[in-house]
């Protein structure tokens, strides 16, 4: 009733091809953006910002990058953690080695380091595909673990192997408070998400999807597999690298190579699969599911236990968190194998014909 596009006539190609062709969607998204930019920093407390929203935003950005590679181009990658690590250490070295380097260019340069690394480790995709490629990209993960643990130059010869950044500034403004950091991450995410959305709707995005759906057929109709695959690796690892730099600089602020272990690669892949392959909004859902749900369970379980008068130990809470989390993953994948984003679009469709479903 409220959510119907009847009467919204499109008179230009521009109107027809915009990201949200339905007016209600546009209003909703503008309201959401305004809420995220204005209301959240005013209302949310420090814990919510620092421990939940900032990691969620950064992981959404990373999942977005992984989704371009895995979801849109169909190249399964287990090297996402490595791309994040290269982005983080690249940006770190740019920031500390070049005097007067501002933060945003350092992040972009970090992303470019990850881009070069991604192309290098994307080369096997020209020969191997599917699970074999996943194994080949795992090499990127081990290689990154190795260089940042062993080559002291990257960590500025710090004896503990751990590096840290502080006194970050953006355009001369200090990036100190939780709200500032949140806004900075949100801004980066909004810009990259808009670029990514437009990229996947463009010719190159259609090339990626053609390669994903059937690479032989795509080659036959004139799409260059090498160009398409490597460009997907490049764009994806650039975004993941920037996310890695943000994760290290803004969220952790002091980190060691273990922060970008293979575990992170798996988590990113799960985010994309659970959120929805080949869907920008799915990356956000997936990140929310993987980042926020465990923390939420960790806090709700003792409270739930207290209601029924049971005192659950922290170890039991932690075990229960894993079990419930795992069960939910399985349940979601059975109920909706196409991910949370498909549930979202089904919901929208239902809403469109409500209250008279046919």
């Amino acid at each position: 009733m409220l959510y119907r596009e009847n009467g919204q006539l499109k008179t230009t190609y521009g109107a027809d091809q915009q990201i949200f062709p339905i007016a209600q969607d546009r209003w909703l998204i503008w309201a959401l953006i305004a809420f995220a930019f204005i209301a959240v920093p005013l209302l949310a407390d420090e814990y919510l910002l620092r421990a939940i929203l900032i990691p969620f935003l950064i992981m959404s950005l990373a999942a977005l990058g992984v989704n371009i590679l895995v979801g849109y181009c169909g190249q399964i990658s287990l090297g996402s953690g490595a791309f994040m690590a290269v982005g983080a250490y690249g940006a770190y070295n740019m920031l500390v080695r070049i005097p007067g380097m501002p933060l945003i260019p350092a992040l972009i340069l970090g992303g470019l380091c990850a881009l070069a690394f991604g192309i290098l480790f994307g080369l096997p995709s020209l020969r191997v595909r599917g699970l074999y490629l996943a194994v080949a990209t795992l090499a990127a993960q081990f290689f990154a673990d190795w260089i940042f643990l062993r080559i002291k130059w990257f960590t500025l010869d710090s004896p503990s192997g751990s590096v840290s950044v502080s006194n970050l500034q953006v355009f001369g403004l200090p990036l100190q408070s939780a709200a500032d950091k949140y806004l900075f991450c949100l801004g980066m995410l909004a810009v990259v998400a808009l670029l990514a959305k437009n990229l996947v709707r463009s010719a190159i995005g259609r090339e990626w999807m053609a390669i994903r759906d059937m690479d032989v057929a795509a080659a036959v109709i004139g799409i260059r597999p090498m160009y398409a695959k490597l460009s997907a690796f490049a764009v994806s690892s650039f975004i993941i690298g920037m996310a890695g730099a943000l994760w290290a600089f803004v969220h952790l602020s002091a980190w060691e190579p273990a922060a970008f272990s293979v575990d992170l690669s798996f988590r990113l892949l799960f985010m994309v699969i659970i959120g929805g392959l080949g869907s920008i909004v799915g990356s956000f859902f997936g990140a929310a599911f993987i980042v926020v749900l465990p923390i939420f369970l960790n806090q709700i379980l003792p409270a739930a236990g207290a209601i029924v008068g049971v005192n659950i130990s922290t170890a039991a809470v932690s075990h229960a968190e894993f079990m419930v989390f795992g069960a939910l993953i399985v349940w979601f994948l059975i109920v909706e194998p196409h991910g949370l984003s498909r549930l979202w679009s089904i919901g929208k469709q239902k809403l469109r014909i409500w209250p008279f479903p046919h």
Partner: protein
Amino acid sequence: MNKASANLATVLVMLVSSLSVSAIAQDKQQYFPLLTFRTGPYAPSGSPWANGFVDYFKLVNLKGGINGVRVAWEECETGYATDRGVECYERMKGKNGGATVFQTMSTGITLALTERGMADGIPILTPGYGLSASADGEVFKWSFPIGGSHWASADTQIQYVAQKVGGLDKLKGKKIALLYHDSPYGKEAIPVLAARAKKHDFELTAIPVSHPGVDQKAAWLQIRRSRPDFVLLWGWGVMNSTALKEAQSTGFPRDHVVGVWPSGSDSDVKEVAGAAGYSAVLVLPGPGFESTIAKEVREKLHSKGQGSGPKEEVGEALYMRGLMNAMVAVEGVRRAQEKFGKGQVMTPAQARWGYENLQIDDKRLSQLGIADVMQPLTTTCKNHMGPSAARAYTWNGSKWDVSSEWLHADPAVLDPMIKAAGDKYASEKNLTRRTPADCQS
């Protein structure tokens, strides 16, 4: 801000926070958050450690609190993961009127929290571990590696090795291999051992083992080939027992393997056949099944069904470490109360003064019932570590035997390194050293 934030939080999050606050909403209490790891690959080390912590707090409350102020504590499970540790820190730092102090129980989490603690004005306590450079109290105002750090561990460890060969001068020309957990914790050993190697002219080979440390075949192959005189074991969790098993299968004599406190707990050696002869140099407390405080815990808590873990672990090295960690946290508050008012709840800034002016002498240690397993602790504004004492214990197949006198970390070796590391940190972070006037605060 706080009221407004409650509006935004979802109904469920509000439910959580309101419940957990109401559970401990009583009169005067001092809130100690705990970052524990009872799950994950390092849980065997984490559980007794956490149990010791909690038992000590229970004991303090049984005896009437800190001059009447009850101790409140809350655990947050980190699984030894840095990102969860940061989340726990953010979750607990503002609860119940503010966290008094954070004990990270992990070197990785310490690194992530050092700056946050500085910014938020919450002391970070790391007795026996953490960031060794933070002993420099003039740079690290909020960090306290009281009574020892990994550098102190490394220094006392090499002293013990020297004792075994008959003096520091006899180390000349010896080959010593360092088998370390490839994490900030393990790497902390290298600078001190390298400095000692230069001073006494022995050959040091550092062999890293990556997390979690179950695959050490290549490392032991290297040890077999180079035949070092001693292997210094800097392992954690499952890495320790694996190393001892590998030592046995390589045929490396176990009495030439020397560990430190993270590689010297009962869980590391208990189930390992052929671990006998292995010794570990433990800074701060060692195992103390017969210590006064262990007896007290058994009598006042376990016999009444109030104990936190299995009764058998009371007195284990890591359990005693938990007791000692909690003791330092409480004693700091007690010390602060002497200045800021007895029977008052201390703010983190007031507690910080207590940690900085800690005076736990022999007399106090025996009052606390822990005198037979550890040495006095003192801290000053300049030196947040204070004198660091360690003792070697040798596993005889069923229990740890004391096998050395008290070894003291040599300030002549450590102080210049701490100063240099502090200066480097200060220049990186644009910090200035604290003035003497600031020390009075």
